[in-house]
């Protein structure tokens, strides 16, 4: 429960989050439906919007940054993302560069 709702304020945070979420969904939808970009480009754009929206949901609706452990949870989540990206990008880099890739059917 956030501080604002406790005090009886209008839940601006939720409204703004809700509107941004709708906007992001519509833009993604429009990109897929009404542009003639290549499917790779569309895929990347949708992916970026999806990541932004996921972060939005965590912060605006799921109160990730609030409460006494807010900083800790956010920090650990970011650290988790960082490690995941390092492992995936690092592995991809290693497996496709150098003379390693010559023996592969990639």
């Amino acid at each position: 429960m956030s501080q604002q709702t406790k005090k009886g304020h209008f839940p601006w945070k939720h409204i703004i989050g809700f509107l941004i979420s709708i906007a992001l969904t519509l833009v993604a939808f429009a990109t897929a439906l009404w542009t003639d970009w290549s499917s790779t480009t569309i895929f990347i754009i949708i992916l970026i919007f999806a990541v932004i929206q996921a972060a939005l949901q965590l912060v605006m609706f799921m109160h990730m940054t609030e409460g006494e452990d807010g900083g800790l949870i956010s920090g650990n989540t970011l650290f988790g993302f960082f490690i995941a990206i390092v492992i995936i990008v690092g592995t991809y880099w290693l497996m496709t560069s150098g003379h390693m890739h010559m023996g592969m059917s990639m």
Partner: protein
Amino acid sequence: MDLKWNEFIITGDPLILGAQISILLGGIAVVAALTYFKKWSWLWKEWLTSVDHKKLGIMYILSALLMLFRGGIDGLMIRTQLAKPGMEFLDPQHYNEVFSTHGVIMILFMAMPFLIGLINYIVPLQIGARDVAFPYLNNLSFWTFFVGMALFNISFIIGGSPDAGWTGYTPLATNEFSPGPGQNYYLLAIQIAGIGTLMTGINFFVTILKMRTKGMTLMKMSMFTWTSLITMLIIIFAFPVLTVALAMQTFDRLFGSVLFTLQGDGNPMLWVNLFWVWGHPEVYIVILPAFGIFSEIISTFARKQLFAYKAMVVSIVTISVLSFLVWVHHFFTMGNSAEANSFFSITTMAISIPTGVKIFNWLFTMYRGRITFTTPMLWSLAFIPNFVIGGVTGVMLAMAAADYQYHNTYFLVSHFHYVLISGTVFACFAGLIYWYPKMFGHKLNEKIGKWAFWIFVIGFNVCFFPQYFLGLDGMPRRISTYLPEDGWTGLNMISTIGAFMMGLAFLIFVYNIYYSWRYSPREKTGDAWGLGRNLEWATTSSIPPHYNFAVLPEVTGLDPYWDMKEKGLDQQKNTDYKPIHMPSNSSTPAIMSALMGMAAFGLVFQWYWVGIVGAVGIFITMIVRSFDYNDGYYVSVEEIKETEAKANK
């Protein structure tokens, strides 16, 4: 897998026959003794089903000492075989098995449980808690580790040991080049133990974050608790990678997938990559708690607060990030691009900086301190120069171009033994001796302890220092013999003598446990060394009662117990007792883990019906656990009063 019975039980090797007979006789002796003294029910109720972090810690440490013995015997067998050129003590196959199991056992079944055992015992006390956040899970962690360990150890008498190195590199470890159950044992045993470690990671991460006593902010935690916290963070992020990689190789070997194979679209190098994505953080998992132990001991026996506590915290947090960015230095020569090698070469050199910071912190902690040279302090002092030798050679190995010369030689073997033995093993000995009165109510004999210390440290240097020169002379690792013309005979002989000195020191250490149990005076207070700085020493009796603290202590500063003593506060004077809520023991973890062992044993031999029965059993125990509504019991105020009164006598 069609196995004849004489392939199922390994026969024909006199060394293994000797081991089989001694295991059989040892087993019969233990069973007979337990039955004769009517101790079965005591063992089951007081220990095996216990959720008390202190008892679990002791069981971890006992298992680790047993594995130190087993892994040490492996090491001595390797050194005996290499003492002279052309030795026929072990045949090449047996030699491969011995060095593979030596590595796995020493890292995963000795170093890890030893440190986790110390963490189990000490960390809840240091943060002023009564137990861990998830006591049931703690018992399950222990049992999964134990079953993994047992499964790995029976491989050498039933079916044959893994022989593809402790790294289990593909393609060597695929069915094509390593047929038979050996490598399956490796995959499944480490898988089960790894799940246990992951649970420990989550358990202690939550415990340290959520269960600290009043007033203990993060920046007032002891250094051992800090290093444990960061270790658990690394476990949480590194172990899933191992779990997945092991599962992938298991699929390759059991179900014919082609992830790491040479046929199909498999890529053996991906295993190497994934193994070290876990493997390098693992190095820090076994060294960070060791740093914590040395910090505690050095600060205690120099009678000073740890120098630059904040810098120490910052450097271990930095290590937790950097430890995930250096894994490629384990395979510089596998054919990566120059850019990749350069990048990981630089990150590797960078990670030596926070470690260097710590070395200075320890030195400045001792500077102008009044040092008492007890055995744990001696181990800590010996750690510094020896670890620096290991670290400097590590920076040499970090240079990718130079590594083409050093890799796969004894230079590397010597480097990692220098860091792992003088870091982790010295810390295990130091920590065990330092906290021994906390665990068993009496100290280990100092005189015998110092003998063991000197023989071990000298033996260690005699054993491994010559190996740097053997490596520079071009002696490759993992060879079972060499020729007199190679010119490696003299140094190898010296190295073997050093190894046997370490073996002797271990025997003296074990004798010391027996001797001290018989003759050491019993401690009368909680602060056995008289110099304790952290809350583990603030308990009423030398061995804390099962609820640890009758009244939870309140913390006002760094080194809280020292602080209390300075201010003349007495933790025991506070007799405002309230009933204490404690968790109940449970027998499901032991049964669940045994079923995991059964399932895994079935998979090792590809007897799928055994595997299925075991897996169904695991789910049944999980369901049974879900309907377990026992949420602990209360220790009454009368019982607390009685226990506390007894403790103060």
